[in-house]
C-alpha cells in the first residue's frame, strides 16, 4: 500500500534562520530585549547540560531511565518562557526545558527517573503539572483545567491560560482528539503545543498522520500553525500570542513545533535500528543553540565573556546535579501506602500495619536478617 503522506513544505513560522538571521513575520512581531535574548541562550545551554548530565547519570546506573530533550530545547524554552506565573503547563515526559523555565529544580526531575518518586514537585507552586507518561492523557487534564479557569472568571488580559505539551505520536491517541473537541466547544483557554520531533519511538510521522499536524486544528474549529521548533524566538512569539488570545477569550490554538529528536527515544532505545545517520546530520545544521549564538554574535548582543560564563555556569550546574542525584533520598518502604487515599482507609491502613509488623519481624530476627 502506498502511503500518500505528502509532507510537503508547509508554511512554517520562522523568526530566526539556522544562520542566525532575524526574519520579520507579519502575524508574530517580536518584542524582546537583549537581556531576554541572553536569558534564552542561557536557558538553552543549561537545559542541554542538564540533559547531557542525566544521560550520563543513567549510563552510570544512577537513573533507571532518561528521556532526552536534545534538539528540542528551543521549542520548550521558547514556549515556556512565553508563560506567565499564573499560567499552567501540562507536560508529557520529555519537557525538561519547560520544567526548567517554570523554575523546577533539575534534581526534582531526576526523582521520577531514578525511581525515588513518581512525581517530584508541587504543581501549584511552579505552574507545572507532573509529567504524564500515558500518551495523550494530559491533553484532557489541561483542557479541564482551562475550563476551570473560565469558571473562575480568571480570563481576560491579565488572566490565565493553559498549555498542553504532547508529541507527534500523541496526536493519534483518541484523548488528544477529544481534548480538541472539548476545548473547541468550550472555547477553553488552552494552547496545544505539539513537538513534532519526527519520531514516536521508531515510527516516523507518516505512521501517525497523512498531512501536517497543524492542519488538524482547523477541522476542530480553531487555528493551527506550524513553527520552526528549533527557533526559540518563533516558539516564544507564537506561544505568547496564542496564550494571550486564549486568555482573552479567543479559545484554543494548536502550535506544531517542527523539530527533531536528536537522541534516542529514551536511554533504553537503540535508534540505529530504525533511522539513518544522514537525517541527524541534516538536523545538526539547524541546531537551536548555534543559531541563537550566531545571531547574538552578529548583533553584538553578547561577547565571548558571556558565552564563557554560561559555559562555566553549565559546568557548575552539571557538577551540582551529579551530587544532588546521588543524594536524593530513597523512599521508605512504608511510603508505599502514603497518600493512596486522603481519608483513613481500613483496607490500606490494615495492610500498612501488617507490613510494618512484617518488616519489624526481620529486625527482631537480628543480625541473621530473617530467613
Amino acid at each position: 500500500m502506498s502511503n500518500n503522506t505528502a509532507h510537503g513544505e508547509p508554511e512554517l513560522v520562522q523568526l530566526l534562520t539556522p544562520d542566525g538571521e532575524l526574519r520579520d513575520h507579519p502575524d508574530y512581531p517580536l518584542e524582546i530585549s537583549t537581556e531576554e535574548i541572553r536569558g534564552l541562550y542561557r536557558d538553552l545551554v543549561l537545559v542541554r547540560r542538564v540533559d547531557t548530565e542525566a544521560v550520563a547519570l543513567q549510563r552510570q546506573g544512577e537513573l533507571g531511565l532518561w528521556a532526552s530533550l536534545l534538539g528540542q530545547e528551543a521549542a520548550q524554552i521558547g514556549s515556556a518562557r512565553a508563560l506567565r506565573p499564573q499560567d499552567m503547563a501540562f507536560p508529557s515526559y520529555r519537557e525538561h526545558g519547560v520544567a526548567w523555565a517554570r523554575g523546577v529544580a533539575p534534581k526534582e526531575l531526576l526523582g521520577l527517573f531514578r525511581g525515588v518518586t513518581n512525581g517530584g514537585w508541587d504543581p501549584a507552586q511552579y505552574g507545572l503539572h507532573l509529567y504524564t507518561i500515558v500518551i495523550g492523557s494530559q491533553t484532557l487534564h489541561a483542557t479541564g483545567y482551562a475550563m476551570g479557569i473560565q469558571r473562575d472568571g480568571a480570563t481576560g488580559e491579565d488572566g490565565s491560560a493553559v498549555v498542553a505539551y504532547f508529541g507527534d505520536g500523541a496526536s493519534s491517541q483518541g484523548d488528544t482528539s477529544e481534548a480538541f473537541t472539548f476545548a473547541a466547544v468550550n472555547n477553553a483557554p488552552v494552547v496545544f503545543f505539539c513537538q513534532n520531533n519526527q519520531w514516536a519511538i521508531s515510527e516516523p510521522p507518516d505512521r501517525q498522520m497523512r498531512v501536517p499536524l497543524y492542519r488538524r486544528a482547523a477541522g476542530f474549529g480553531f487555528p493551527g500553525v506550524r513553527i520552526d521548533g528549533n527557533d526559540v524566538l518563533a516558539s516564544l512569539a507564537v506561544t505568547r500570542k496564542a496564550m494571550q488570545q486564549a486568555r482573552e477569550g479567543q479559545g484554543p490554538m494548536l502550535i506544531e513545533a517542527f523539530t527533531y529528536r536528536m537522541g534516542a527515544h529514551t536511554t533504553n532505545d537503540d535508534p540505529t535500528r530504525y533511522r539513518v545517520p544522514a537525517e541527524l546530520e541534516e538536523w545538526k545544521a539547524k541546531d537551536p543553540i548555534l543559531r541563537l549564538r550566531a545571531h547574538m554574535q552578529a548583533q553584538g548582543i553578547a561577547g565571548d565573556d558571556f558565552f564563557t560564563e554560561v559555559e562555566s555556569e553549565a559546568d557548575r550546574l552539571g557538577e551540582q546535579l551529579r551530587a544532588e542525584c546521588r543524594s536524593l533520598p530513597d523512599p521508605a518502604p512504608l511510603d508505599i501506602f502514603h497518600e493512596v487515599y486522603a481519608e483513613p482507609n481500613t483496607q490500606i491502613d490494615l495492610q500498612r500495619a501488617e507490613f510494618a509488623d512484617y518488616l519489624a519481624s526481620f529486625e527482631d530476627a537480628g543480625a541473621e536478617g530473617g530467613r
Partner: protein
Amino acid sequence: MSVNLTIGKAINAGLRRAMESDPKVLVMGEDVGRLGGVFRVTDQLHKDFGADRVIDTPLAESGIVGTAIGLALRGYRPVCEIQFDGFFFPATNQTFSQLAKMRRRSAGALSVPVVLRIPYGGGIGAVEHHSESPEAYFAHTAGLRVVTVANAVDAYWMIQQAITSPDPVVFFEPKRRYYDKAEVDTDASPDSAAAMGSARIARQGSDLTLLAYGPMVKTALQAAEAETERSIEVVDLRSLAPVDYATVEESVRRTGRLVIAHEAPVTGGIGGEVAARITESCFYHLESPVIRVGAFDTPYPQSRLEEHYLPDLDRILDGVDRAFTY
C-alpha cells in the same frame, strides 16, 4: 423535613444540596443539562445552577473523566454522570491510570475529588451494554473508593458524602431500583448519616448471613422473608472498596454461614474477594464454605433471557440451601 423520595430523586436532592453548599461542585456528562439525564437524576439542576455548573459534555467518556480531572486540579468537585454502565469503558484509562493514581504519585500534593456516577445493573429489559455490573474492575483498582446504594436514604446521604470526600469515588446507582421509595429526612444534619464506608445490617437473623449490595439488596431481603425455616441476616455492603469487614465478620461469626449475591458474573466478582477474606478471618466460625450467587460467566444476554441470567429469589434460596448442605 421528611419526604418520600425515590432513589433517583434522592440522588437529585443530594446533588442539589451539595451544589448549594459548595459552589465548586459541578455536574457534567451527556444529556445532564436540559434533559436532566436519561434517568432524570439531574433534573432541574441545569435550570437552577446554569450551564457552567451543569455541563452537557461532548459524547466522549474519556473526555468527561479527563476534563473532570483537570477541573478537580483547578479546585472544582466534578460529579460526572456516565450514562450507562456499558459506556464507562472508554474512560478506563483516565479513571484507572490517572484519576486513581493522582494523589499518591504526587505524594499528596494533588487532590482529585471527582465523583463518577454510574447507573448499573440489569433487569430493565434494555438492549446490549445497558445492564452491566462492572464494579469488580473498580474495586480492584487502588486509589478509588467504590460505593453503591440500595435505598433512598443512603442515596441521599452517600452522594453527598461522595462529593465531600477528598478521594475519587465511584458511585454506582442501581438503575432498576431508581423508582423505589423511602422516607428521607432531607434536613437532618450530615453527621446523623452513617459513614460512607460502613456496611449496614439490613435485616437481623441468626442462621446465615446473606450479603448483597445495590440492586440485589431488595432481592436478598425478599429471599430472607421467603425463607421460613431459617433465620437469615441480610447485610447491605454499601462500600465495595474498602469493604467494612468488621461488620461482615461480626455477622458471620454469629451465624456461621455466608451467602453472597450480586448481579455481576460470579467469576472475578466482588463475592470471590469477600469469600476469600472472610474464609481467612473466620475460618473456625464457618460451618460451610461461602456460597456465591451471581450471574453466569457470559456476556449479558438479550433481555428476554435476563431473568434467567440474573440471580433472583429462587437462585438465592438455592444458594442458601447449598450452604446448609455442608
